[in-house]
């Protein structure tokens, strides 16, 4: 017989380690995508993942931290706003790039060197 109570507690009583674990996993997935994907759209999406991992961290420390206030949530909202702006500019750049070069493959965009 499964101890439902214990299983429930395990699932429902989510603590700081769970949040940090989720955040780390998200961040790693984002980093992996950032390094490996060829499409600039996918790269931008991965950057978004990493930003959201940071946001989860901020919120988690706000919720489980020793001094509960709203600074973490506030920072997370700032992060979301910045991410939205970033994605808007990034997408605009990607579209412009595609019109100019007819490609969105980052391997072909390697002029930035000495």
């Amino acid at each position, binding site marked *: 017989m499964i101890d439902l109570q214990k299983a429930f507690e395990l699932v429902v009583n989510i603590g700081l380690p769970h949040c940090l674990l989720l955040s780390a996993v998200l961040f790693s997935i984002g980093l992996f995508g*950032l*390094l*490996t994907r060829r499409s600039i759209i996918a790269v931008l999406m991965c950057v978004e993942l990493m930003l959201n991992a940071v946001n989860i961290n901020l919120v988690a420390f706000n919720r489980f931290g020793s001094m509960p206030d709203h600074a973490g949530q506030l920072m997370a909202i700032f992060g979301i706003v910045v991410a939205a702006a970033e994605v808007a500019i990034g997408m605009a750049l990607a579209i412009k790039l595609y019109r100019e070069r007819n490609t969105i493959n*980052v391997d072909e*965009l*390697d002029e*930035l*060197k*000495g």
Partner: protein
Amino acid sequence: MFDFALQSAWLIPLLPAIAFAVIGLGTRQNKQLSAKIAIAAISVSFVLAWSVLGAVLTNNITVEAPFIAKTVWTTIGKIELAMGMLIDPLTVVMLTVVTTVALLVEIYSLGYMAHDPGMGRFYAYVSLFVASMLGLVLAISFFQMYVFWELVGLCSYLLIGFYYYKVSAREAAKKAFITTRIGDFGLLLGIIMLQIYVGTTDFAELQLQLPHYIDVSGTGMLTLIAFLLFIGPIGKSGQFPLHVWLPNAMEGPTPVSALIHAATMVVAGVYLIARAFFLFNQIPIVLEFIAWLGAFTAIFAASIAITQRPMKRILAYSTISQLGYMMMALGVGSVTASMFHLMTHAFFKALLFLGAGAVIEAMHEEADIFKMGGLKERMPVTCKAMTVGVLAIAGIPPLAGFFSKDEILAAALEHNFFLFLIGSITAFMTSFYMARLLFVAFYGELKDDCPAEETNDFMRYPLVILAGLSVVSGIWGHFFGFGEWVRFGAPVHEGINFFVAFSSVVLAAAAIWLAYAIYVEKRWSAHGLAARWGIFYNLSYNKYYVDEFYVIVRYYGCFVVARILYWIDLNIIDGAINMLAKLTGAVGGTLNRAHCGSVQAYVICFYGGAILVMGYALIYAYKVLSMAGGAF
């Protein structure tokens, strides 16, 4: 009645200096006015110089009790530099000789330089030279003498290079300046060491302090100082091995050769040693060296003069030879004989040079005596004057050279028989080559295309006056007690030594007869003799290859060292710099590969760096905490 002259003797060098400034700054373009200013200045100096002679004779001023007037010029630390004038018989001999010859030469130049566009410049330089030379003569200290010593060197340079548009004149000027600089450097070192070790360069003070210094410190350092001081005269007075500049110095105008490179400037070295004789007298080894070097220079230069062909070059080597004579006289301790010969030589050598200038001008710049001949008929006055000069230098009584040369040979005989022998052989050679010059140029057959004419009055009368001086200056010096007058307490020969007089007259006469036999009667062929004594002829004709030797020395001493240094500069110093640059380039090139342009590669580096920093922070934190009590 002459006392005013002593008080105003400072005007003697100042007037020509003013003339130099006026001509150089103002009237340079006006030839006649420039000449008049220069001659007016030197005339007043001339009168003053002879008045000083009168003052010295009437006021009983001797070498032991000179007239000194000085003022402190500047003070450097503890060293007081005084300028002033020292007048004693030695000074007066030089003053009268310099002003007399300079006056005559400046008058002669009125004729000689008349057609030269640079006549104003010429008179400016000559005035500056006369001013410097008279300043040198009046100097009270080695320091003051050195200042004027360099000034006469400068004037010599300017006047040798007077025809600066001729390459040979420029080269000769450089050669003279550089060669005498070598000597001047020794002199400067000597003067500085004198100041350091004895504490003064003032002649009068030195004379007082020197015995005390020798008692305390011995003569070791003084010997070195005396040798260094002597290097200056070696350069300036054309002693072997720094004589090479003097023959080339004849590139200048002939009046300059007569004034500077025969009669006055080149005897500055002799004068310096005579002036500081009390110093040299303390160190017999240096005097011995001076005597032998002088004797060697005398016979060496005479043997070169025998085979030379250009008239002025013969006279130049003759000058070197006679300067060697004067040095020898100083070395054997007879200042009297040396100064006496200096005076007579100034007159007859100036005469010979001015005569040569007249001849060369008349021959349209042809200097080779074998292309002249029979000039006696064309230029009778010049010929007579030259004959007097030749007989005077040959030492035929009763002309000037006889008495002064006799004094030197007698002094040499008292000192060392071999020096006397060298002196006598030199006298024989001197008579021979001077007679050769005279017979070949003036007596032989007149060439058909000879353009020579008697020169103008300006050039003729100075010759006549100098010829007169060449006749009387010897007798005057001999019978009116020159030896009594100029002396340093050193052994002075009085009267004629008949053995010396007889032998030197016989030798001179024999040499003149030999020259007559070869070049006039043609009893022996000159070419035949030259061929028979080929080695000696070539050695002499090529001046013993001293110039070539200097070329080699310069090549190995200068060019080879320069090339080695150039190689070091190019390969080691530049090499180090280039290597540093190459190293930087290589490092940059290697690191450049990391800069590939791929954004994702940059991101990897960025995260790699972040991980490293993080790792380090963790390790550091672990260490700190474990030290604080092991929280982990």
